[in-house]
């Protein structure tokens, strides 16, 4: 088996603050193969975006990272700024949540798409502009309606996100990281953007890391997924497998609390009472010693608070970091 394209190996991340050290990530390991799509789900503050930023080399100055992020043999945590600059946008590209802040409002969209081509691929102006035009066509912004001379404020949210996708595709990266790419969009537009991301990754064979708080999005766009909670990976496996078992109590709780899941269960009745998870995500300054989810978990025992539970095998390539994983059938 060849080495994975991207291998995050026991990445831990601490940020010292006035209130003490914030533990942002603990022991996060992810292997991503060429052409694979992997989903990362979790609530805000669980470390999803920080993992993505670590891969892009965009961590805050004060962040103290241990472990390794191996990309094609090089450790990105040790790489210098010049090496990272050559990588960002060229081999690893990112789509952000809010397209308006990701785009430069005073630069026309054609120039923004062409920027990476000129910088990384050293294309001439005319050639880069031609290529930018083709990219805009590809993402559903066809000429003549969408001139490359338009500025971001002249576009709607969905159209702006298409421009961001065109920028990310420009240099043919190996990995596309999509961090909540549709959270700011309406549902029908969201469906179009997800379709577009699925189509372009399938066409070019690039690997996809889809970060979302929405279980539905991850279910529909990825082959493998991992569930994060309070800076740790609590469950991971093939997407179909994880949804079939929902072995970690947090994954199961998240699923039960999601109104989408209730709606999808085909319940014919009227109003539904959601199964809320009591309490809230622990403060990164005061992470509990044992299992991070123990305080909110109905299955927690003394053993859970004694130490961090090791991942246990649930199925093929499917693990859950839990001493008492839920093994019964998922109610459909």
């Amino acid at each position, binding site marked *: 088996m060849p080495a994975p394209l991207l291998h995050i190996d026991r990445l831990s991340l601490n940020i010292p603050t006035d209130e003490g050290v914030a533990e942002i990530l603990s022991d996060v390991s992810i292997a991503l193969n060429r052409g694979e799509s992997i989903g990362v789900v979790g*609530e*805000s503050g669980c470390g999803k975006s920080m993992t993505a930023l670590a891969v892009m080399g965009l961590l805050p100055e004060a962040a103290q990272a241990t472990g390794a992020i191996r990309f094609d043999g090089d450790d990105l945590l040790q790489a210098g700024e010049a090496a990272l600059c050559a990588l960002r946008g060229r081999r690893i590209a990112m789509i952000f949540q809010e397209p308006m802040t990701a785009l430069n409002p005073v630069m026309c969209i054609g120039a923004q798409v062409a920027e990476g081509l000129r910088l990384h691929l050293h294309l001439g102006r005319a050639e880069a502009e031609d290529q930018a035009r083709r990219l805009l066509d590809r993402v*559903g*912004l*066809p000429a003549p*309606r969408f001139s490359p001379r338009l500025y971001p404020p002249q576009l709607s*949210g*969905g159209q702006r996100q298409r421009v961001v996708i065109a920028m990310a595709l420009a240099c043919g990266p190996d990995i596309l990281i999509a961090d909540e790419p549709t959270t700011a969009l*309406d*549902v*029908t*537009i*969201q*469906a*179009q953007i*997800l*379709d*577009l991301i*699925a*189509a372009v990754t*399938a066409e070019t064979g690039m690997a996809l890391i889809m970060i979302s*708080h*929405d*279980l*539905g*999005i*991850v*279910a*529909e*766009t*990825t082959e493998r997924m991992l569930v994060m909670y309070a800076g740790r990976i609590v469950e991971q496996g093939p*997407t*179909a497998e994880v*949804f079939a078992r929902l072995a970690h109590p947090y994954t199961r*709780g*998240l*699923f039960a*609390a*999601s*109104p*989408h*899941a*209730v*709606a*999808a269960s*085909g319940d*014919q*009745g*009227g*109003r*539904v*009472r*959601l*199964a*809320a*998870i*009591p309490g*809230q*995500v622990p403060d990164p300054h005061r992470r509990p010693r044992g299992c991070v989810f123990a305080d909110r978990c109905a299955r927690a025992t003394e053993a859970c608070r004694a130490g961090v539970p090791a991942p246990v095998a649930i199925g093929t390539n499917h693990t859950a970091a839990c001493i008492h994983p839920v093994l019964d059938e998922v109610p459909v």
Partner: protein
Amino acid sequence: MTDALLEVRDLVRDYALPRRHLFAPPPRLRALDGVSFHIAAGRSFGIVGESGCGKSTLARTILALERPTAGRVHVRGRDLFALSAHELRAQRRHVQMIFQDPYGSLDPRQRVGRIVAEPLSMTAEGRDRATRRAHVAEALQAVGLAAEAANKYPHEFSGGQRQRIAIARALITRPELIVADEPVSALDVSVQAQVLNLMSDLQARLGLTYLFISHDLSVVRCVTDEVAVMYRGRIVEQGPTSRVFTTPLHPYTQALVAAIPKPDPRRRQDRSTASAPPAPIAEADGGCPFAPRCPRAEARCRIEAPQLRTIESGHSAACHFA
């Protein structure tokens, strides 16, 4: 309808857009185009639609923060826009609002006690400090917060707790109707469920009436009895919530329901089919506003605007083919 707590009839709201040139009349944008519905006391009514469909204009009009171009809003049979300024002020305590963003809607420099007590300032009981304090404690307790929370500042609370504070502020005047504009869309899934359940509990306990506005169909499904789907300022479908979502009649509602990502990996196959670029949305003149995007549109749809008509008891849609 005499038992309706809120009745909205033929509401129209036009906004003037910037003039194209100096002497041209300003073009008009019709944000609400003949919206009518009523909510019976103690019920929960949902409005769903995408951004720009007029949901928030509707909420602002019902709160009398905005005057309609035409149409009426009756609360308990009284026409809001026929009241004098003084009467309107007295009326406001019966209708309260919960906003979307619990970070933006609470003043960071005021203590929670003062934030929650603010709506009382226009009522008689708000003048007495002890009564005010008792009311604040009661409201905080109703939303599951300790009375000591009154002495803290908003930044000391998480997003879900802040939204509880916003709900306490809405409850303090003991209103009959609460207008909730996207109350949980800024919250995480597990916390969202807590807040939705709290809203349902409060309704059962205090007999509240909700107008629940959201772009998220699944959320609306969990807390409402009846729902109206809006598109470009019009109600295109209305009916009992469970029926609208299980058997949507209007093509727009069908598209909305189909677009929700479902946590079911088996649907993944459908996704990979290449996406067509979206059709340019042309202005529909006189015809059905949804016709340019509608897969079933025919010549008739572009000429004649369909009226909202009852298809089966209590369930209506504005579509020629429903």
